[in-house]
């Protein structure tokens, strides 16, 4: 199915299932501990042995010697594979650092060996017996501030509109500040895990925890130089990914090598410290933002320059992602720099770009509102745009940012807040309120599915993943709606490379793309059923197909009917800017003496097109808000610049928000429909919930204390000296 023009009317206009709250259908499996996660595939690979990885102990350099003799002779050990025994493996899609093979160490905890043993404890103990000698690489300059100073002003701007210099020269008010966001770890609950059967060294089955089956499938073939046809990848349950599991990682590679060496299936999960330093993370950023505005409150210039780091060839983090499109303004200059650094690889993490970009931009907006003497909500409303400001011939497909701000302000009682910073107290706590805008692009990807009607039951096969987001449920809803059936009669079969290729889960494109793919497949099935019955037109409703003289239950169709299709996105979408929008409101308390900051109240208002399932969508948004609390107040990958690694590599020292940090959360979905976006008029929402949250908190801290903090996380060491004396 090609999506060639905006939707006028279709069956979702009178939806009975789509858009309705529905508990996730995989919920009972998860809460009873019976959902088979990648490390627990006793159903599929009951004889799997245990693999355990060894990571490099230096920041970067070369291995000069390895001795695995003691490990090989340790109790229960079946195989040891060291990186020196393996030629450097090819790199899969978007792998920047090599996952295994050869003597080069590109970053701390890069995998250097795998041990396979009868028990987990034996494998782990043996891994510690492997001796590795290194030649350390030359000391590297890991100072991102210094790097920013070097690159600032160099290179062609990514976006350049109008005479920026003139705008700043003529502005009534100017903001010009530096902002810092730290490295962030995805810290999903389930570490990267795989069970792999490559015991014969021929065909390979990979039960893994991955967001993108097809990319993973291709990357495994590339990495090992074998035919994709000989590999099957399954990832039916994923305990969180947040972008960390978009690509092939060392867990699957080591399990495969271990399996081949030991001649048995092998399962392997990365220990938590290796999640931090072996896999990918969100780069820290340094950002300089300059805003120019007139006395009318309209932005006349936006100048955003940022830097992130990555290993050579990587993409880092583009904190300027939203700046070309989010706010009106006649002139702008935008430039992102990626600086090479020998650190663990940086790559996508939930809302890559916008998450860290809005952490800075939305503070800058707050600062400008104050300079102008405007309410920060009103200031954002004044600077709304219905066209892409960097290309004004391109309208937004559907944008209700102003309504998000207005609805939120009303629901949050924004007008009642204290407007003089430091002016509201509750005992020892300084109380503040903050707002921030939210923007995240609305990407879509081609997505396929197969729909099979079998004895009144509808089976949907697609390689789409459910990374905890609710894909099983919303795809079943979409299929049921399209076929006029009950959700209970739909069986979802997902996340298997044997099924049609889907969008996968990432970039909040999963829900809009994969529901469209399932819709396409079901429409193809309808056509086939109608054709089989000799009907030119048919209606599917209440589990029946009707048309002409025919009126029969789908369960009466004895022959299995199967159809496969995929959604393809037409060029017409290029004529629109597509995005999702939101507004975050928070109330914070800052302890007047200690500077401890606690969030007291949160509200998100989201404009993301049709909400396919309000329960699972709300879970996505409140989860994003929780991640935003961590980003604002505690998460910080602590870089040891002398040793070139992240020192706080466990969940005790890398502090994500815990239950006690999270107050009452409210989410309002605007009742919007985006006819340009998808046949369901839906857009993703999983990343929007994070965008802007941290800045709303930072702005609340300013309102509470009168102290502006531009370095995340906003821990008290950064501002305790600036708090009022006690």
């Amino acid at each position, binding site marked *: 199915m090609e999506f060639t023009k905006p939707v006028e009317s279709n069956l979702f206009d009178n939806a009975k299932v789509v858009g309705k709250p529905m508990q996730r259908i995989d919920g009972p499996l998860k809460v009873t501990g019976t959902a088979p996660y990648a490390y627990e595939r006793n159903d599929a690979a009951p004889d799997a042995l245990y693999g355990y990885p060894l990571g490099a*102990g*230096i920041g970067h350099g070369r291995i000069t010697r390895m001795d695995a003799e003691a490990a090989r002779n340790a*109790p229960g050990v079946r195989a040891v594979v060291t990186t020196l025994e393996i030629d450097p493996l090819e790199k899969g899609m978007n792998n920047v650092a090599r996952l295994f093979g050869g003597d080069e160490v590109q970053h701390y905890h890069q995998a250097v060996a795998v041990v396979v043993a009868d028990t987990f*404890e034996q494998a*782990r*103990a043996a891994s*510690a017996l492997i001796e590795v000698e290194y030649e350390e690489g030359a000391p590297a300059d*890991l100072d991102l501030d210094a790097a920013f100073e070097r690159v600032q002003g160099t290179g062609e701007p990514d976006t350049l509109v109008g005479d920026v210099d003139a705008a700043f020269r003529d502005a009534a008010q100017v903001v010009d500040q530096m902002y810092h966001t730290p490295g962030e770890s995805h810290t999903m609950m389930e570490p990267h895990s795989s069970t792999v059967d490559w015991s014969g060294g021929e065909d390979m089955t990979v039960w893994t925890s991955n967001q993108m089956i097809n990319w993973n499938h291709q990357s495994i073939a590339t990495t090992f130089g074998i035919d994709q046809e000989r590999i099957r990848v399954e990832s039916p349950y994923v305990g969180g990914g947040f972008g960390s599991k978009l690509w092939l990682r060392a867990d699957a590679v080591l399990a495969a090598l271990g399996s081949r060496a030991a001649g048995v299936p092998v399962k392997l999960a990365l220990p938590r*410290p290796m999640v931090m330093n072996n896999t990918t993370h969100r780069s820290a950023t340094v950002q300089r933002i300059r805003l120019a505005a007139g006395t009318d409150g309209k932005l006349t210039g936006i100048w955003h320059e940022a830097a992130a780091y990555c290993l050579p060839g990587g993409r880092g983090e583009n904190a300027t992602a939203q700046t070309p499109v989010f706010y009106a303004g006649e002139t702008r200059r935008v430039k992102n720099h990626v600086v090479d650094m020998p650190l663990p690889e940086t790559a996508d993490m939930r809302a890559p770009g916008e998450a860290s970009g809005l952490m800075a931009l939305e503070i800058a907006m707050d600062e400008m509102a104050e300079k102008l003497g405007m309410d920060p909500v009103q200031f954002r409303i004044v600077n709304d745009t219905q066209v892409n400001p960097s290309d004004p011939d391109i309208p937004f497909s559907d944008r209700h940012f102003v309504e998000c701000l207005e609805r939120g302000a009303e629901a949050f009682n924004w007008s009642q807040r204290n407007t003089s910073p430091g002016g509201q107290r509750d005992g*020892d706590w300084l109380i503040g309120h903050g707002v921030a805008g939210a923007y995240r692009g609305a990407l879509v990807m081609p997505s396929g599915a197969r729909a099979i009607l079998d004895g009144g039951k509808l089976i949907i096969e697609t390689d789409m993943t459910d990374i905890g987001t609710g894909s099983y449920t919303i795809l079943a809803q979409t299929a049921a709606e399209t076929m006029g059936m009950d959700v209970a009669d739909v069986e979802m079969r997902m996340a298997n490379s044997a099924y049609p290729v889907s969008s996968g889960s990432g970039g909040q494109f999963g829900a809009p793309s994969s529901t469209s793919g399932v819709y396409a497949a079901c429409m193809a099935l309808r056509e086939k059923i109608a054709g089989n019955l000799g009907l030119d037109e048919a209606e599917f409703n209440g589990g029946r197909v009707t048309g002409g003289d025919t009126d029969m239950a789908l369960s009466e169709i004895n022959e299995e009917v199967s159809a496969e299709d995929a959604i393809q996105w037409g060029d017409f979408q290029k004529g629109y800017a597509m995005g999702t929008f939101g507004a975050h409101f928070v109330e914070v308390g800052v*302890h*007047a*003496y*200690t*500077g*401890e900051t*606690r969030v007291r109240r949160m509200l998100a208002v989201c404009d993301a097109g049709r909400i396919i399932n309000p329960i699972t969508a709300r879970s996505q948004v409140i989860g994003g808000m929780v991640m935003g609390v961590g980003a604002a*107040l*505690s998460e910080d990958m*602590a*870089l*040891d*610049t*002398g*040793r070139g690694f992240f*020192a*706080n*590599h*466990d969940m*005790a*020292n890398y*502090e994500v*928000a*815990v*239950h*006690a*940090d999270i107050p009452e959360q409210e989410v309002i979905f605007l009742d919007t429909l985006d006819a340009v976006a998808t046949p369901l008029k839906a857009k993703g929402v999983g990343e929007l919930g994070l965008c802007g949250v941290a800045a709303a908190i930072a702005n609340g801290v300013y309102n509470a204390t009168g102290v502006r903090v531009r370095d995340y*996380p906003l*821990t*008290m*060491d950064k501002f*305790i*000296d600036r*708090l009022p004396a*006690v």
Partner: protein
Amino acid sequence: MRAFSYEKPADPAAAAARAAEVEGAKFLAGGTNLLDLMKLEIETPLHVIDVNGLGLDEITETEEGGLRIGTLVTNTALSADARIRRDYPLLTRAIAAGATGQLRNKATTGGNLLQRTRCPYFYDTNQPCNKRVPGSGCAALSEGAFSRQLGVIGTSDACIATHPSDMAVAMRALDAVVETVTPTGMTREIPLEEFHLLPGDTPEQETALMPGELITHVRLPAPVGGVQEYHKVRDRASYAFALVSVALIRQADGSGRVALGGVAPKPWRSDAADAELPNGASAVMSVLLDGARPTEENAFKITLAERTLAAMLKES
């Protein structure tokens, strides 16, 4: 985790005797810290002596009007005990501020005192650490290191780790006494003040216990009354070690006691600083933290400690 042998002795004295006799022996109580460290091979005992079930799990009243806490009393049981809550509320508050409900259910009184530092370099066996491998160096003191959480006073050029316990800080303010049994079956008393050692050149030696010596009880003197508060400052609201914690006992006449956690290799208190309490937080801290040697990253702890105490003095 390295392979180890295991035994369950008959009584505390036998446990101590065996611990002195068997090479590489280590006591196991709640296991909330030891097992984690064994998995990471930071602790590599050859022999584990399980002291659970030795009957040291009761809180009894002493003749002097205090309480005697068996070493195996769990943190949960201790903090919830009605006598503790009534007469030593500081201790209840400190324990409840630590770890999580699950950990407190398993963690024991003696084990809590013996828990080891959470310095990230101690926890990473690729890094030098004088506490883990004597003489290997201190990564936390090297150029570019991450030291925000670490100690500001009582530290040395060999080690700047802190003691992570909340419970111990309250016990220090309460003048607790550690009772032990030695390998020869003798009993011994060690004031908590003398129990934890400063690192000096030997940061691997953390307590005054002799090899094999087993904590049997912790004794609290008769209640001292006053207003008792524990303020633990941390970045997130739960399940984090203290950046700074302040235990305060304040009497109606303005006198009292102050002990700090999160700043030193042991609960940090001095009589001279206590004496300054009537003169306010600044006066207390200028004595208590005199001689502090913070790093650039953790110098804020000095200000934070003073401001935290100021908030508590205002309240009490």
